[in-house]
């Protein structure tokens, strides 16, 4: 059976993934809309930046975040001045890192959904007296629902599984920054394979079920 420390790690991971997913849906939606619609030349640059975490080794992301958010980094100074203290080795630090790390997994499905619907639904809404914001909320968002479901599931699942970034920015503080993957790592290091199996197997099953639901027609069907 998993120990209470393991359960704490599971809950912490779930909380981290949830907070990250919600934040990413809020931040990612306008970015995805802009990337799908804007004629701006900056689009390719922003698109590349958003996609970067997909290909960068997590250790690299973690390292630079540690430098930026650290006591001498520009963002670290800012957070200190704002009275937020230093973010590395805190839950908030983990959230910031996860948001960046999982960004492409959320932005891309939403962006694709917006791009696939084309200009027409928004134009039709405008001819029916809907203001641009109103049309976005009542037409674009509902039509992009499958994209949002994919984005939320991938963002959540990807955050649950992160290791390298967490190791760099979060450390391994039980109850505070020790997430599931760190707990598994600790068990393996200590040759506690039985406990590692509980956690690793659990995660495997969980993510498999999530993807199964995502790919089964019922959940992800177009409205």
């Amino acid at each position, binding site marked *: 059976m998993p120990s209470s420390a393991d359960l704490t790690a599971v809950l912490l991971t779930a909380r981290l993934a949830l907070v990250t997913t919600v934040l990413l849906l809020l931040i990612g939606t306008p970015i995805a809309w802009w990337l799908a619609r804007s004629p701006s030349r900056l689009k390719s640059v922003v698109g590349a930046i958003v996609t970067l975490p997909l290909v960068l080794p997590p250790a690299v992301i973690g390292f630079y975040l540690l430098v930026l958010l650290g006591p001498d980094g520009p963002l670290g100074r800012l957070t200190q001045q704002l009275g937020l203290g230093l973010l590395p080795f805190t839950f908030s630090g983990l959230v910031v890192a996860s948001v960046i790390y999982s960004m492409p997994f959320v932005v891309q499905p939403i962006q694709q959904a917006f791009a696939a619907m084309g200009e027409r639904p928004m*134009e039709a*809404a*405008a001819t029916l*007296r*809907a203001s641009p914001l109103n*049309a976005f909320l009542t037409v674009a968002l*509902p039509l992009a629902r499958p994209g949002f479901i994919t984005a939320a599931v991938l963002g959540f699942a990807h955050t649950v599984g992160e290791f390298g970034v967490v190791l760099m920015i979060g450390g391994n503080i039980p109850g505070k920054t020790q997430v599931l993957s760190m707990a598994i790592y600790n068990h393996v290091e200590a040759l506690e394979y039985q406990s590692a199996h509980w956690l690793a197997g659990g995660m495997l099953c969980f993510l498999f079920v999530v993807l199964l639901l995502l790919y089964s027609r019922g959940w992800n069907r177009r*409205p």
Partner: protein
Amino acid sequence: MSIRARLQRNYPGFALDVDLELPGRGVTAVFGPSGCGKTTLLRCVAGLERRATGYLSVDDEVWQDDTQQRFVPVHRRALGYVFQDASLFAHLNVEQNLNYGMQRVPAALRRVSLEQSIDLLGIAHLLPRQPDALSGGERQRVAIARALASSPRILLLDEPLAALDAARKAEVLPYLEKLHSELDMPVLYVSHAIDEVARLADHLVLLESGKVTASGYADDLLTRLDLSLAHGDTAGAVLTLTVSGHDEQDHLSTASFSGGVMSLPIHDKDIGQRLRIRVQARDVSLTLQKQSGTSILNILGATVRAIAPDSPGQVMVSLDVGGCTLLARITERSARTLSLAPGLSLYAQIKGVAILG
């Protein structure tokens, strides 16, 4: 009541440049070949082309005036727009689609009720359906009703029948005609199909490579020999008749106009009602003496107005029939044999079954 449009829109390799004064009532068809800028013109009127420049007013409302830096955004223009592909909202059922525009119009400004638009387009039985469960024709009817329910000052139709097969087209056309006769709402109708234009339009704008080549009453333009419209296989004249009788047994109706009485395939219109019919130039033959012993039902006294060359070996003859105009497309040889010349009196023969009503 009128529409003033002086609009330009430049694309690489194409420029739309029109200066139009259109009537504020009835159906105005914008006709021209694919790529002539018809749809662009309609989109400029709707405000969907933000880069269009110029001036646009509908009735007393100025929707665009570059000299005043005025550009009313699409959602503040009281217009109805029907796209070629209907563009119903896939996440809403038919009823919710209809409500979408109506709800956004203040109750005091609603001039067309939801019930009225549902009745006019005959879609009451479709209300609970999702758009993907509709046929192409049904989809267009819902799209038109949706636009109507938003009580527009002007209805813009972008080739609403182009994506439909002949059967679906025949299903939707009567609704468009009903719209025309029952609603006092100006309609701008973009089409490249002459048969639709002839059936629906009061006023006609001919567009070619982004420029207006002619604008005026449809009945006049359709028979003007200097326009390409009045040439070729699809050329024909439109006559407005008054239904004068029905013969149920022979399945024929009679209808009269200043040029005489005509028999045509039976029509469901009541006696005394106006009927627009189209007589294609290829279905009209000419004879100097009134024939007897012929199967042709309609023989009308006519005077030759003008003759113009058509395709090789053929000529288009414009005829005055009681003040109205008919077109006849005959061979050059026949024209020579009959010694056709302007002012000559003769008879125009039209087969009853050839009349399109």
